């Protein structure tokens, strides 16, 4: 099974070097084994969707990729750089990897524009005017340039999440991580955020999205990874995963989220 998937991915982007390489990654929280021998390669430009039941380790997995969590065994390489305790490697990786959280995590004391320019100015050392032009460009892309001077608390959830996407994009990352970006949103706002994500996928951005939005997965994902209890159970193109689940665990999961929707 893994060979078919490898074939799919490499056929799509044969020439691209892998953006993310996980090799037999293991992680424990205390005595709890939350990632079990997870191996996964994400090609440059690939769009990967990760799904699985709550508590299966999806967040932990993508948080390990930008080292918000540390893994204990195995190796993770991002953009060719091995994740370790080396702070310089860490800085380099965080600059290349953007992240969008379930709970937005905008900085409430800064305006939307300041949220977007902070890191370009202080991490990328971009002149302020240039950072602001860039930020306005991305705010336009997520369709809220008119909110630039407002504070996050004055925006709706969907608008906040779009600002969070713009904020991450302002760092011009090579890879974007999304951890359930729509699960804290009201149904009518999910669409506007997904539209922005689809637009981003069309630009060729490397994306790893934890999401249960099957419509989105079908539309943009090159590959869907199903996790359960800290391990990758099945992976393949969205059609195959959703139409022909091979394991009982995936079948059970699909029946649950279909009933939920």
């Amino acid at each position: 099974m893994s060979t078919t998937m490898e074939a799919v991915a490499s056929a799509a982007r044969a020439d691209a070097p892998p953006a993310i390489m996980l090799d037999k990654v293991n992680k424990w929280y205390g005595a709890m084994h939350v990632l079990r021998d997870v191996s996964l390669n994400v090609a440059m430009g690939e769009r990967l969707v990760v799904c699985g039941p709550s508590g299966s380790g999806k967040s932990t997995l993508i948080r390990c990729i930008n080292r918000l969590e540390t893994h204990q065994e195995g190796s993770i390489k991002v953009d060719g750089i091995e994740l370790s305790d080396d702070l310089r490697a860490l800085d380099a990786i965080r600059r290349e990897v953007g992240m969008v959280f379930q709970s937005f995590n905008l900085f409430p004391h800064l305006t939307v524009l300041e949220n977007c320019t902070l890191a370009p100015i202080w991490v990328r050392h971009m002149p302020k005017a240039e950072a602001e032009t860039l930020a306005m460009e991305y705010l336009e892309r997520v369709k809220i340039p008119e909110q630039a001077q407002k504070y996050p608390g004055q925006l709706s959830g969907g608008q906040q999440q779009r600002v969070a996407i713009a904020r991450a994009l302002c760092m011009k990352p090579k890879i974007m991580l999304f951890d359930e970006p729509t699960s804290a949103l009201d149904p009518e706002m999910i669409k506007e955020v997904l539209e922005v994500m689809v637009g981003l996928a069309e630009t060729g951005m490397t994306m790893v999205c934890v999401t249960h939005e099957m419509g989105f997965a079908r539309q943009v994902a090159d590959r869907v990874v199903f996790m359960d209890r800290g391990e990758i159970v099945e992976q393949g193109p969205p059609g195959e995963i959703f139409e022909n689940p091979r394991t009982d665990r995936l079948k059970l999961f699909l029946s649950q989220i279909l009933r939920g929707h």
Partner: protein
Amino acid sequence: MSTTAIANPIPTPARPAPITLVGPIGWMRANLFAGWVSSLVSLLLLFLIVKWALGFIEWGVINAVWSVPNNQTQACRDLRGTGACWAVITEKHRFILFGTYPYEEQWRAFAAILIFIALFIVSALRRFWRKELLLVWVAALGSIGVLMWGGVLGLAYVPQERWGGLVITLILATFGLAFAFPLAILVALGRRSRLPAIKALCVIYVELIRGVPLISLLFMASVMFPLFLPEGMNIDKLLRAQIAIILFAGAYLAEVVRGGLQALSRGQYEAADALGLSYWKKTGFIVLPQALRLVIPPLVNTFIGFFKDTSLVLIIGIFDLLTAGKTAIIEPAWQGFGIEVYLTVGFIYFCFCFAMSRYSQNLEAELNRHRVR
């Protein structure tokens, strides 16, 4: 009729609320005379307030004696308490403000007080909140030092033992908080550090200092500290008291700041990390601005407490505002006029503390605007 459809093509115009509901009349009806019990209590309190105010005006203004010729306090004593003897303030105000600072040089101490007040006002205005403000502080505190000590620029040298009064209170409070606050921030951050040594150091510091009264710290600073110094080396008494106050205030403020740090959600740290901000940038741009905004009320509460606690330096023989007031009425001619002196000293303390309190309320409202929808 009951089955016909009803349409109202013209929107009803808004009318002003009845005069009995809004404006001062409405307010009084709602808050003072909402029922007969409420009305009775209001009238009773009003009566007491007016009576007390009239009594105070009679004592403090109408019957008061404002000045007496060369220490002849007979006129004051003849009042037998029916009027205030403000003459004691007229006579002793320089001593209360400047202590035993040489009379001809007291303009220097006065200038220092004015510089302090100007410094407070400039620092309070948000439009001056820039990096340059730090330089202004250094310049202001430096020039206050030059003014008070002298010995340069043609100013006569005035030893620290002769400083006193309001200047001392302002020096202790301003230098104290100016150094204690940054110290407190570092200690609060240190207490949350992942490095065990730094964390332990900060915990020990806070717990040790909080565990003893300020008075005993002041005693230690004045009596025990010199014993540890090498022979012949002597640190100014005021400086020792100042260090004790800084250490004490630092420990308390650190706990206040830590409260603010704890209120911040983990997501804020993670978002800053994910953007690649370094520890100090994360702390300076994301963590502290939010944490400090949250703790403005307890922070100012502690500031006000310490402004007044500086008066404890009297036990090691430093002449602050309160001690100067107390000493002013030791002279036999002026004995018995404590009320007037303490009212005046209390009023000066009140002005500073009330200004801090009001300012903090404005600041809180302004800085937390982003939390209002």
